[in-house]
């Protein structure tokens, strides 16, 4: 495994492939075998399938070259655009709420004086919970007849909507449920960021007579920008592909009138229900492009120097 330099010199007389130290590559080999088999191959298959007509639920259907037919049919379908629009609202509103609430939560935990560790642990706990379990629980709580949410609202005199049964509320019900679970991630990384901030700028700001509100905007926010950019990037990436909670809350139809249909739900439906290989491949490629463009632009907007 070791290939020490030859004692006679630097080994310049040996061929190129013998001079290369293979050890680092051998450690990386298992990783790239896995990625090759379950990432590269599926994406190559996807790219190829997107140009073919092939439906698995139709026994007479054979894999047949169809040119750009799949893309044409997907891009002229109204439902594609509706699901894209819903996804953008879902992701945009969700991430904005998570950043704002995450910042408030992080500041609260940062400044809490009693039982800080216990409370932090509890507040951060939703992050890793099984999304299916979270989704099922919220379905129970959102129920218009016997759900606890409308009961609590009625106690303060508000008549709650039918949430998951009301087309004008389905998407927002999804947003709230997701924000409940994932704000904890934003709190986690912002709290770590706050603990890593230097003390000096705050002391000089105090001497200059700045109040804590001014200090927050002129010191805390700029210093937290890099970590905020990473947090937003991750949440965007994962929010776009969210499947579990929308599936549990609204099913593959996306609720009444498909009002809460997300792009990932549509992709799953075309794969799993229609077994349309070609269309699902075309949708898969569109999802990658949308993810790439959105994650790249938004992250750059928040913080120019971010690299990953």
């Amino acid at each position, binding site marked *: *495994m*070791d290939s020490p330099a030859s004692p006679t010199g630097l080994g310049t007389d040996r061929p190129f492939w013998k001079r290369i130290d293979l*050890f*680092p590559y051998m*450690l*990386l080999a*298992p*990783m*790239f075998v*896995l*990625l090759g*088999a*379950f*990432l590269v*191959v599926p*994406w190559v*298959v996807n790219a190829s399938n997107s140009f073919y007509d092939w439906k698995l639920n139709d026994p007479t259907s054979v894999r047949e070259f169809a040119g750009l037919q799949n893309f044409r049919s997907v891009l002229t379908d109204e439902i594609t655009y509706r699901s894209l629009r819903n996804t953008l609202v879902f992701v945009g509103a969700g991430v904005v709420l998570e950043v704002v609430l995450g910042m408030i939560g992080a500041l609260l*935990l940062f400044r*809490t004086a009693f039982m800080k560790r216990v*409370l932090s*642990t*509890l*507040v*951060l*706990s*939703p*992050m*890793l*919970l*099984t999304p*299916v*379990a979270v989704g*099922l*629980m*919220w*379905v*129970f709580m959102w129920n218009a007849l*016997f759900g*606890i949410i409308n*009961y609590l609202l009625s106690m303060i005199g508000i008549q709650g909507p039918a949430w998951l049964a009301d087309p004008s509320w389905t998407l927002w019900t999804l947003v709230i449920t997701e924000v409940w679970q994932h704000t904890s991630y934003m709190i*986690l*990384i912002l709290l*770590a960021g706050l603990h890593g901030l230097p003390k000096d700028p705050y002391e000089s700001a105090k001497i200059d007579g700045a109040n804590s509100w001014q200090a927050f905007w002129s010191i805390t926010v700029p210093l937290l920008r890099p*970590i905020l950019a*990473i*947090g937003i990037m991750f949440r965007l*990436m994962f929010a776009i*592909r969210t*499947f*579990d909670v929308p599936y*549990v809350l609204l099913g593959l139809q996306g609720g009444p009138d498909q009002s809460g249909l997300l792009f*990932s739900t549509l*992709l799953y439906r075309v*794969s799993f229900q229609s077994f349309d290989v070609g269309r*699902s491949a075309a949708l*898969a*490629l569109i*999802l*990658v492009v949308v*993810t790439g463009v959105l994650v790249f632009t938004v992250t750059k907007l928040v913080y120019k120097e971010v690299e990953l």
Partner: protein
Amino acid sequence: MNRGVLTRKVTSLLIWAATLVLTVISLFPVVWMILTSFKTKAESFQIPPAWLFSPSLDNYRTVMSGGDSVAILPRPLTFYLTNSLVVGVITTIISVSIGALASYSITRLTFPGRGALSVLIVGSRVLPPIATLMPIFLMFRNLGLIDTRLGLILIYSSLNAPFAAWMLRGFFASIPRELEEAAQVDGSTRLGVLFKIVVPLVLPGLAATSIFSFTLAWNDLPFALFLTSTEAVTLPVVATFTRTEVGTLWGPMAALGTVMIIPIWVFTLISQRWLVEGLTSGSVKG
């Protein structure tokens, strides 16, 4: 007491009160689910809600008895629990080992192509796994991996290994280089250095990464829903069975949800510190 001290005390009390509210909101749905799992059918629909009730194990009995006439699950809970545990544990062992080797290589060793390869590993996470469902289904159909635990293990390992490599970077980077060099001078091979010197130093990182990897496999719905039917069905999939044609079976659903969530809760509570370090050191050091 002067005014300044009083204001500070009031502010601090208000902050604490607000934090308590935040804590209640973060815990409420889970606590509500656990309570519901111990209620009878009538109690779970009661409005105003029943806060005090004598706990019943009926829902757990229902999900434990699979296959017979009153059962709602095709098989007893233990069958699905075993699937989830086996898939989760083996996935964790594979993905953390492979991820750790790769992470060590890209953080501690210098070699041509290092930058590009590490970008490839981290960047692979940007591709949405849900978009590969169909090609993987087609692959698995040819390989006979549909509805097998091995199939799920392979998929989850390939998704989690890059994540493990990313999460471990901060832990590997923080080891002093002198330790490795000293061991090498002592005549250890490089693999010996890795296993005898480096691995013991990153154990907290390996523990945090393992918990995370297990959780991701334990939680997954889309792959398990698409690729399994009867034999390799995991807990998240079977939990969705409680939404039936005639309506949702809330009690059994809450019981299944509780079974899924309790291990994750225990894990995160005991390993909070390492988990925070793993999730943030990777991101802070970008």
